[in-house]
């Protein structure tokens, strides 16, 4: 950490920002000239407002996605990753003709077929990992929702110390995730971690959190539940506070009990807040990388979920073409889930698209 380091990094970062700014200005002028002067479009101003964002998203999301799609039809791996990048489309010229049963699945879609018929890492196949991911998502979401809703309802009543409780309960969300997860991993040490110390103090056997596959999975879930409850709690608390007290007063006059009020007032009125939170929560949990990747210190394949398996396939085994196909399979699963969920619950209908 010297003066030179500071100036050189400032120079690099500054020049990059400057580069982006100059690019933006040129882009704005270009849009103004083409749409405003030549086409005389009434959408010139929105196009100018959107232009830089679109270019950024196109360059860093759309283009890599298309690139990845192309990659998923190729045989690229570390061996073929050189200056020349001699990878080709999988069109079966080199393959053994005897081994080809179907042109579609053995040539064109070979990588996609391999996702389902070969181990995605060294030993595990796609479907066990997929079902583990569903189990992981389901367990986490259920606990996030129950814990978040329970705490939000307790915090939604007038009482002493509410602000203090809220602050303390938000804490896991406020800690940088990498730190929280790495600290938890340290605490899963067999001898010196606090979960095992507590277990032995109440007379139970210590647990092999990091080496036993089942306990490793449970450890992952514990950490992620701990991390995720505050977000749900905060979102649901916001939703609860927007429900007018009058509904409850009216229900009480009609003689509705607590459970009836909860079912007929709280849940339906919480729905607009809960549905997006559930969709987002599912996607975030399904795609959660840090927790399963770090807690699984010894890289047990039996604890991997889809996204960590994807990362390992790409960057530890360097099977780029294969992992691109793998990535698209995961993406399509999530897309189908979201479309299904949105369709069933009818959300986004009221959202002014």
């Amino acid at each position, binding site marked *: *950490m010297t003066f030179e*380091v500071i100036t050189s990094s400032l120079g690099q970062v500054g020049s*990059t*920002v400057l580069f*982006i700014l100059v690019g933006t200005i040129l882009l704005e002028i270009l849009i103004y000239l083409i749409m405003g002067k030549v086409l005389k479009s009434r*959408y010139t101003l*929105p196009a100018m*407002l*959107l232009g*830089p*964002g679109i270019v950024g*998203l196109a360059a*860093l*999301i759309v283009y*890599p*996605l298309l*690139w*990845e799609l192309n990659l998923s039809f190729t045989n690229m791996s570390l061996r073929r*990753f050189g200056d020349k990048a001699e990878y080709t489309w999988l069109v079966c010229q080199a393959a053994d003709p005897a081994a080809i049963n179907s042109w579609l699945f053995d040539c064109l879609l070979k990588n996609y077929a391999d996702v389902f018929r070969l181990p995605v890492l060294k030993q595990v196949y796609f479907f066990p990992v997929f079902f583990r991911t569903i189990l992981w998502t389901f367990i986490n979401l259920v606990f996030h929702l129950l814990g978040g809703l329970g705490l939000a*309802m*307790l*915090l939604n*009543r007038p009482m002493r110390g509410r602000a203090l*409780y809220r602050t*303390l*309960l*938000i*804490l896991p969300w*406020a800690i940088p995730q*990498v*730190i*929280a997860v*790495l*600290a938890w991993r340290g605490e899963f*040490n067999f001898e*010196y971690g*606090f979960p095992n*110390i507590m277990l032995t103090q109440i007379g139970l056997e210590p647990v092999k959190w990091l080496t036993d596959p089942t306990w490793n999975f449970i450890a992952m879930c514990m950490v992620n539940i701990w991390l995720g409850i505050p977000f749900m709690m*905060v979102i649901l608390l*916001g*939703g609860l506070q927007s429900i007018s007290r009058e509904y*409850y007063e009216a229900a009480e006059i009609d003689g509705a*009990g*607590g*459970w009836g*009020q*909860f079912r007929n007032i709280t849940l339906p009125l919480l729905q*607009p807040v809960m549905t997006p939170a559930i969709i987002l929560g599912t*996607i975030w949990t399904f795609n959660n*990388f840090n927790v399963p990747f770090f807690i699984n210190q010894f890289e047990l394949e039996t604890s991997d979920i889809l996204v960590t398996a*994807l*990362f390992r396939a790409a*960057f530890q085994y360097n099977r*780029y073409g294969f*992992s*691109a196909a793998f*990535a698209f399979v995961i993406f399509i699963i999530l*897309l189908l889930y979201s479309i299904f969920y949105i369709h069933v619950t009818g959300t986004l209908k009221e*959202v002014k*698209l």
Partner: protein
Amino acid sequence: MSVTAKQTGAFSSFFKARRGDSPFKRLLIHLTLIFSSIIAVYPVLRVVSVSLRPGNRLLSTSLAIIPEDATLDNYVTVLLDQNLLLWVWNSLAITVSTAIIGVILASTSAYAFSRWKFPGRTSGLIFLLATQMIPAAMLMVPIFILAVRLNLVGTYRGLVIAYSVSSIPFSIWILKGYYDTIPLDLEEAAMIDGAGRLSAFYRIILPLSTPALAIVFLFSFMTAWNDYLLARVLLANATAIWTWPLGLQSLQGQFQTAWGQFAAGSVLVTIPVLVLFLYSSRWLISGLTLGGVKG
């Protein structure tokens, strides 16, 4: 649905929120909240505890939070012998610049989405939502290969460019939702007074949406600040520009000696973020529900 009267009673007393709660019930609620708070806080305090232990007592089966022979050695070591300051500086330089770019791009784009009905608007918004479904690891391979081609691996430049867009989709959604709640009349009044559309945006909409802009800035900042994956892929061997997640992770790898330094580094990195977060959490909550939910 056969719920006995007793159960209904238990349910109603649990779910109802009214002033005249019995003392026993209030005690029960406080106990639940205290217990939950302990679960939330204890692991964090453990990190503090480990950071205060002297080097020869890092591994201990004590559950006490403040060790008897507490020392600040680990803090001194991580600041002087390790590169914590450098890592934090790298993160800061990269993160602040990307957050500024991100907020500028998102605030203008969101304004276009909020105030104009142009062709492709709906599909654009759906596309932004769909980007949230892309697993982070999915874009790593193409971004890594592109970065190799463009000589951006191991540079600040690569990370700044890659991060600057990452939080935009979510930011646009939040900001669009917020702009939608600002009545159009305000801009029209300004435009009658002779202001152009852009100056109405600049003078009226932007100042009015300061809370949402602050949230979006915080969000973009946090996304880049806490990222491990992209930094690891792009900076794996460039130790000189490691961001703090990479640095701290390298300390955590060797369990025995660096465990205390890892803890001390974690405390030092967390405190500013924690203060910022807790300070902003009040309007963070209202902003998220306003922008994200009311649409």
